[in-house]
């Protein structure tokens, strides 16, 4: 699974992009976020307030219950501020 981080999320995780292999029981967006917080203090801090996190799976906005799997591209980012 490919993970992408944008804006201040990238600063906190310390990486813009990484390949990860979560355990098989991680099957949804919400489970992925919970698993990510266990990967280190930077991740825990980045994901502290989930109201500030948006998730896209394969470049489409996703909800907490949406499925994620090994081949997916999952992006985490703060609310957008373009325009």
């Amino acid at each position, binding site marked *: 699974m490919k993970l*992408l981080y*944008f804006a201040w999320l990238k600063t906190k995780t310390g990486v813009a992009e990484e390949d990860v292999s979560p355990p098989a029981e991680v099957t949804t967006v919400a489970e992925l976020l919970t698993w990510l917080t266990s990967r280190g203090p930077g991740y825990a801090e980045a994901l502290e307030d989930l109201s500030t996190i948006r998730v*896209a799976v394969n470049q489409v*906005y*996703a909800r907490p219950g949406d499925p994620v799997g090994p081949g997916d591209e999952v992006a985490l*980012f703060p609310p957008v*501020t*373009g*325009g």
Partner: protein
Amino acid sequence: MIRVQPEDFDVGAEIAALTGGNHRIGGLAVFVGLVRDMAGEEAIGAMTLEHYPGMTEKELARIEEEAKQRWPLEASLIIHRIGRLEPGDRIVLVLTASAHRQAAFDACQFLIDWLKTKAPFWKQEETAGGPRWVEARDSDGEAAGRWRKRDPDAAE
């Protein structure tokens, strides 16, 4: 049409290219967003626009398609710049053309409202206190919410 680019754009040339020769157009609405030199009380030296390549284009195309479903548009264009921009620089162009002015106006406003809450761009401002990521504004969510009544698949 959708373009994401570091380069500036020429509003007059874009209008001409998109609408020239189409005599069904009665009204043309344009919005241009510019970099201001102040954010609240604080001076801004410049800003950098980050985005999510791939998703940005998809999301803009989806928003544009939604506008075409809702209003009878003869033409539409969204250009959004990325990279470093200084006060006075153009950030975004939204252009809509229709036989009737209200459709052009509504579609233009819809596009910029939705773009501001859905398209994956993030602004980082350069201030005296260092770089700072801009926070999303509630008022932008409210502006986008005006259009939500017919948006069954909104993710937020």
